[in-house]
Structure formats: structure tokens, C-alpha cells
């Protein structure tokens, strides 16, 4: 499998160099964590996130006014280490503490928990966090390690980022981030596997007439393998799973994301959005904002996910607040 890389082992480091060369960012010395170049910003809570690489623009692509102050990049699909996350937290503390957005997956949770303890011990940093678990494909039961955190996390970044930007404190940010997490659901599917730089071959084999439903964002196989369907059928399936989980009343206002997994032409994502919006319309839901694009990817995987967020006035206002980052810009 061909890739635009030098050595697989260097890809994360070199990607970060390329990001810093393009955007208003800097590396935290000696780590694979990246922060806004003026971090820590005094007088506001620092907002950080992080996780494995390969999901670009997630995570560092959401650093900027109105969203994240910093992000830690692990190896491809591997949680960043606790000591790097701890350094990141400390680099983003402008005196008002730091809030971490963590995606539910054991590696991230374990490393962030350890990092938070370390930052509290080493630098007396006040830290709060939220664990996003929006993936409705996985049952949240004794038989799983809980629902995964996937593309809905971007809504949480945006909402928590707007809170931090307007000077809210840790407790308030936590309240709203938890509300957003409760209100959001996502379900994804793959037409193809992705190829990691290390392995250089598809993570799983998928026949020419097969697709995976209920995938995560790490190139892992999904919860179910089915025959290839038309995009309308696929969209119906994903939307139904999300809506069943959210149980929204008629007239509810929502924001949606049709997210590409990295290798999907934007053209196709718009075709998905066409159907999604008509499904929502049929159910009497009101789409207040619809995002279409690559927000949370799995390298070069072809496929998509659908995210629906239930809105109230507070969440609407926060989503509409200005943001200026490489991956998402909302003008005033």
C-alpha cells in the first residue's frame, strides 16, 4: 500500500511538524503534544483533548480561539502516554485550571486519568474532564467496555470550547460538556478498511459486496457485516440506530454531522446528507445546523458516520459562537 510518508515510525512527528509549519501552533518541548502558540492563555480555563493519531483534523486541527488550547497525539490509533498528556495539561493552565475532553476507550481513559493525577501532583493544576461515549453501535453494558467516543466528540469540543472562551469556570464547563455528551449519538460504517502506516495492509478484509456497520474510528471491524446497500438504505440504517437511541420528540431541534472516514469523496457525503435530512424531516425533527465533511477520520478508510445532537437554547448559542481553527471556523 502506497502512502505519502518517509518512515512509518516518523509519521506522527513529521505530521506535527507540518501542522506547526501551517498553523498558529507550537509543540510542547520534547513531546508529541501541540498547543496554540500563545498558550497558556491567562484568565480562561484551558481546554485540551488528545488520543491516537490517524483521525485528522482531530485532534490538533481543532486548536484555536473558541475550541481547544492543546492536544496530545499518540501513535497511530494508540492513546498518547500519560506523561505527555500531563505535560500538555500543564502547558495549557493559564491559572483557571484545565478541562479535558476524553473519548471513551480504555487506553485514553487510563492514560488521561493517570495524567490528571500527575498534573495535580506535579503542578497543582485543577483538572476536570468529561468522557464522551456517543457511539450507539456498541451497547453500554457489562459485556462491553462501554460505548466508544467517536465523531460526536467534535460537538463537545465546540461547545466546551465556546464555554471556555467566554470565561466560564471548570464546573460550568463540565456541566455543559456532560449535557452535550448525553444529547449526542453517532453511528458509523465502512466500505473499506483503512491501512495503517505500520502495517501497510488493510486491517480487515472486506469483500467487494460487503460493508461493515457499527465501526469505531480505529480501523476495527464493526458490530455487523452485511451486504452492500444503496446509500439511501445505509443512511436509513445509521440514522435509525442513532434516533432510536436518542428518542427525540417531534419538533426537537438538532445539529447533524455527516462525517467522512478519510477516503470518502465529499460528493458521496453530500449524497448521504440528502437522505439524512429527509429522514429527519419525516420524523418531524428540525435541523438547525448540518455539517458535512471529514471531522473525525480513520486514515484512508472509505465510509461515513452520522451524528445527531439534540439542542436546547444554550447548546445552540455555544455551537454558533465564533471559532477559528484549522479544522473548523465559525465566523462572528
Amino acid at each position: 500500500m502506497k502512502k505519502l510518508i518517509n518512515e512509518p515510525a516518523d509519521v506522527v512527528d513529521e505530521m506535527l511538524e507540518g501542522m506547526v509549519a501551517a498553523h498558529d501552533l507550537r509543540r510542547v518541548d520534547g513531546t508529541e503534544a501541540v498547543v496554540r502558540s500563545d498558550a497558556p492563555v491567562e484568565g480562561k480555563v484551558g481546554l485540551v483533548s488528545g488520543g491516537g493519531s490517524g483521525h485528522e483534523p482531530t485532534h490538533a486541527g481543532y486548536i484555536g480561539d473558541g475550541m481547544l488550547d492543546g492536544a496530545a497525539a499518540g501513535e497511530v490509533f494508540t492513546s498518547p502516554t500519560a506523561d505527555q498528556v500531563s505535560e500538555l495539561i500543564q502547558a495549557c493552565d493559564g491559572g483557571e485550571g484545565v478541562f479535558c475532553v476524553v473519548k471513551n476507550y480504555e487506553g485514553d481513559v487510563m492514560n488521561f486519568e493517570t495524567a490528571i493525577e500527575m498534573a495535580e501532583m506535579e503542578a497543582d493544576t485543577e483538572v476536570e474532564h468529561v468522557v464522551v461515549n456517543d457511539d450507539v453501535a456498541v451497547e453500554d453494558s457489562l459485556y462491553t467496555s462501554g460505548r466508544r467516543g467517536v465523531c460526536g466528540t467534535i460537538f463537545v469540543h465546540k461547545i466546551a470550547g465556546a464555554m471556555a472562551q467566554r470565561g466560564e469556570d471548570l464546573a460550568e464547563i463540565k456541566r455543559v460538556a456532560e449535557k452535550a455528551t448525553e444529547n449526542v449519538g453517532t453511528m458509523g460504517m465502512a466500505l473499506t478498511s483503512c491501512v495503517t502506516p505500520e502495517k501497510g495492509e488493510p486491517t480487515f478484509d472486506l469483500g467487494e459486496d460487503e460493508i461493515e456497520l457499527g465501526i469505531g474510528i480505529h480501523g476495527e471491524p464493526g458490530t455487523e457485516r452485511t451486504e452492500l446497500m444503496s446509500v439511501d438504505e445505509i443512511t436509513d440504517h445509521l440514522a435509525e440506530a442513532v434516533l432510536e437511541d436518542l428518542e427525540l420528540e417531534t419538533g426537537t431541534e438538532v445539529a447533524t454531522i455527516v462525517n467522512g472516514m478519510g477516503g470518502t469523496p465529499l460528493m458521496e457525503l453530500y449524497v448521504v446528507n440528502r437522505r439524512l435530512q429527509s429522514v429527519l424531516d419525516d420524523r418531524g425533527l428540525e435541523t438547525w445546523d448540518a455539517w458535512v465533511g471529514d471531522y473525525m477520520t480513520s486514515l484512508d478508510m472509505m465510509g461515513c458516520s452520522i451524528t445527531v445532537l439534540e439542542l436546547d437554547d444554550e447548546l445552540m448559542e455555544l455551537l454558533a459562537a465564533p471559532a477559528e481553527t484549522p479544522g473548523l471556523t465559525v465566523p462572528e
Partner: protein
Amino acid sequence: MDQETQTEAVRTAVEAIADRLADEKDHLTDLDSAIGDADHGANMDRGFRTALERVEETDGDPADLVKAAGVALVSEVGGASGPLYGGSLMKASQELEDGITADTTVAFAERYLETVEERGKASVGDKTMVDALTPAVHTYRKSIEVDDREPIDALGKAVDAARRGVEFTTPIRAKKGRASYLGWRSVGHQDPGATSTLYLLEELLDVATE
């Protein structure tokens, strides 16, 4: 064994493990491809290469070296296996502060298993490394405390036990780790973390036997 010999034994063991994981890198990644995210081989290989560098630089008693290996894993691996392997070595290393004896190795093994269970919130039967560790630790302790075997014999039994644990992971459904997302589809696949745990134990036995 005097302290110098013990320290050297730890270095030799870490080296053997690092070599073994380098050899098994692709195999572990293949296992992780089937029910995870295709990085367990790379994670373990990267981690133990760094661990080896660290124990080669570190002076001190065996506990210090094991701890250094653990720190290396925590700060180099990330993912789920980093905090599990690394954190457990760090914690369990405390049990070796009085040197490596039959008793301290039993305490080490139990502490290691406990830490994995705690951090991972996992129990036996969840289709994780715990399934390799549990029979191995139980067998080791029983062999030493009940059967009065030599540590090296006990370790041999523990390795056999771990192997059955690994085989046991195949036919069961995962409850923890990425494989749990697959639900019933996880059945029929061998757990990568249990497999790498077996390799560690096999290398320990090899080094101990030499």
C-alpha cells in the same frame, strides 16, 4: 543469587523479551487486526525496545530495574497496553525491593495481576491479558506454596497454565478492550494481549532455565 547476578538476570530477561516481541511483532498485529486496531505488535515492540535501553542505563537493585522498565512502557506505549503492562510492572516492582526469592516473586506476580485487574476494570473471562495471567499466577503460587516446587519448576507450570489461558480466550466473547465492541464477532479470535503475556512468561522461563 547476589544482587549483581539478579540485576543482570533482569537485564537478560528484558532483552530476551524485547527480542521475542520483535520476532512476534507481525503476529501480534495480525491478532489485533482481527478484533482490535492492528497495533499491538508495534506497541509491544516499541515499548520493550525502550524498556531495554532504560534497564541497560539504570543502576540499582532488581526492583529499580523492573520499575524503570515499567516507566518506559508507560511513557512509550500509550494505548491500553501501555498503562496495563507498564503500570503493573511499576507497582509490582515494589515487591522485589528485598530481592528475587520464591516468596517475593509470588508477591510480585499477585500484585501484577491485581494492578491489571484494577486499571483495566477487567476480570478473568473478559478475553484479555487477565485470562493468561490468572491461571499463570494461580498455578505459580500453588506450585510454590502448596507443592513446594522450586521457582523454576513453578514457572514452567505457570507458562503451561498461561498457554491454556491464551487458548481459552479464543472461544469466548470479549467484555473489555476494543474487542468488546465486536460483540459476538469477537468469538473465535485469540486475544493479542493474552498472547503477548504468554510470550513474556515463556522468555522469563527461558532465561531462568539457562
